[in-house]
């Protein structure tokens, strides 16, 4: 087990014309369960392959506990990796498939047998242990692959590249909790790639969100939900995603559609960069607020018009238009709002954020008397 550090790692498949992974510096700490979350084609697999050594990065260094392994081939890295689709040694039995990584490393016979049986019991493969692996259905085959990834004791990390894509949904749940259990027992570093936010949020200690070849934010699931640092995280996590409402900062107050939404409080990071230390510079911003936190009611607030209501059973989604910009609010089931009704929106402080160029620059604060028009 080791801390895996990426230093300025970047990768291009076409000699530098486009970058599948932009320069990234990041440390995967030993023993944690990570989810690597991002849309299709954002560079998740590329990142994993660089860690496992299947790919040598175009730029940057990979360090395992401070040891530079950038040029070390896969075999010398002690990394386990499970791929998106089942990759089996088809003419071998399930048992032999599981034993293969250990046999190649010349472990003693008893140890191999013990490990194989442990993993097979954990994953429920006992009934098929003697079967030829190619005769299994794809879901089972993928579980065998998962087993091959977990069978080695001494790995620095287990990389799982969307491992449950071919497994049917009912089994997915069970397997994911199994994986968590195994992680607790073994303490392996796990990196679990997915583009499914629920999967990521339920699985991981820490979720790393990737977009267009760059890590945009990493944090605990609650942090990503409550305090997104990038518009993309707001959109991508939560359903429906975060509302984004164009606004204007003037005199330290955020104004939307002629009404004051709140005070513009700079983030501490942004604050340090500011010359006057207190205020965000005036100009356009976007207010980001999750539907869960939009409050509907009478004035004061940002005036809007209800355009539709989705009744979701457990809750309702009220769609409103501020000028021509849509905003969604999640309310209790059985809300009385009807399309066409006038309504005022309020954004609670600490739950609404300000974004410039997609990056968060501040948050919405309570209006003090002096800001009100």
């Amino acid at each position, binding site marked *: 087990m080791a801390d895996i550090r990426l230093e300025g790692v970047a990768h291009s498949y076409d000699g530098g014309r486009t970058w599948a992974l932009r320069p990234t510096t990041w440390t995967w700490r030993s023993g944690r369960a990570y989810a690597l979350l991002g849309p299709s084609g954002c560079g998740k697999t590329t990142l994993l*392959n660089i860690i*496992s*050594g*299947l790919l040598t990065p175009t730029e940057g260094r990979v360090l395992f506990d401070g040891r530079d392994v950038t040029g070390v*081939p*896969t*075999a010398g890295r002690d*990394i*386990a*990796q499970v*791929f998106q*689709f089942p*990759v089996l*040694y*088809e*003419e*071998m039995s399930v048992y032999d498939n599981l034993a*293969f*990584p250990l046999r*190649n*490393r010349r472990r003693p016979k008893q140890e191999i047998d013990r490990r194989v049986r442990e993993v097979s019991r954990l994953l429920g493969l006992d009934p098929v242990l003697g079967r030829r692996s190619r005769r299994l259905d794809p879901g089972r085959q993928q579980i065998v*692959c998962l087993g*091959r990834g977990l069978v080695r004791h001494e790995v620095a990390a287990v990389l799982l590249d969307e491992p449950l894509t071919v497994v049917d949904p009912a089994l997915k749940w069970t397997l994911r909790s199994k994986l968590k259990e195994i992680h607790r027992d073994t303490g392996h570093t796990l990196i679990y790639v997915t583009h499914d936010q629920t999967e990521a949020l339920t699985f991981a200690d820490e979720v790393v969100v990737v977009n267009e070849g760059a890590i945009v934010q990493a944090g605990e699931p609650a942090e990503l939900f409550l305090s997104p640092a990038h518009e993309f995280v707001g959109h991508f996590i939560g359903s429906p995603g975060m509302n984004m409402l164009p606004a204007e900062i003037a005199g330290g107050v955020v104004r939307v559609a002629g009404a004051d939404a709140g005070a513009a409080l700079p983030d501490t990071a942004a604050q340090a960069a500011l010359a006057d230390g207190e205020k965000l510079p005036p100009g356009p911003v976007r207010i980001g607020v999750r539907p869960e936190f939009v409050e509907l009611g009478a004035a004061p607030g940002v005036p809007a018009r209800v355009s539709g209501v989705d009744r979701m059973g457990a809750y309702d989604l009220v769609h409103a238009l501020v000028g021509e910009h849509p905003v969604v609010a999640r309310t209790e089931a059985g809300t009385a709002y009807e399309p066409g009704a006038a309504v005022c929106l309020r954004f609670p402080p600490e739950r609404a954020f300000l974004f410039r160029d997609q990056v968060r620059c501040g948050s919405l604060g309570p209006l003090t008397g002096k800001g009100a028009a």
Partner: protein
Amino acid sequence: MTRPDPRRRANRAWLLVLPVVVSVAFTAVIPLMTVVNFSVQDVFSPTDRVFVGLDWFYEAVRRPENREAFVRTLLFSAQVLLVEIPLGVAIAVAMPRRGVWVSVALVLVALPLLIPWNVVGTIWQIFARPDIGLGGWTVANLLGVDYNYTLDSTDAWITILVMDVWHWTPLVALLAYAGLRSIPQPYFQAAQIDGASAWATFRHIQLPRLRGVLTIAILLRFMDSFMIYTEPFVVTGGGPGNATTFLSILLSKMAVGQFDVGPAGAFSLIYFLVVQILCYVFFTALTRSGR
């Protein structure tokens, strides 16, 4: 050979099969029936013939030179398969998978396949001569081996075998190469992750996925080598003695040389049957073992 399937009920199917039936009849069945016709008669002249039943078949099986040629040909085919299949696979594995060298390697490997049979024979007849041929001279003079394929049976045999290997291993290599190219990249990545050696990768990833193409390669090489005619005919003429008289050379001597059409007909029917049976055995064995 495609034949109408008796289980088919729809009459229209017959119509669709008809062209095949007609062409097979003209190219295979009718010529074969002529041979069958010869094999059960003793022909003295075009107008004077006697029905002799299965006499020629007994005769064909009993004749010692037939038996010897049969064993000789079987041995030759076995050696051809034992050398060409592993060698072809080895060449395919060694060939580059990417880059500019792919086309260079493909052309180099495919070159021997482009040469017509009898030209191959002629090339080797000269190439292997110990007095003026480059290959023969090198072996005889530089390596100091007492080599002369026109006098020594073993030398003749080896010459024919090496020639066949040179000519046909490329076919096996190209088939195997195509098979290897079709293996998806993640299989090799998984092997790297699992710490598989080059041999283990070959044994557990590449070889199992070559089963299909190797079945074809084995069948093709078996049939072809079992029926080899032109090359030994050109190089050694079946000699010295009978050392390289394979079945088809013997057969053509019998039928064309001595005009023994009765025994030749019976013999060629047996020959035909043996090829069919052995192919069936190979095919079944190879496809069964994969399940």
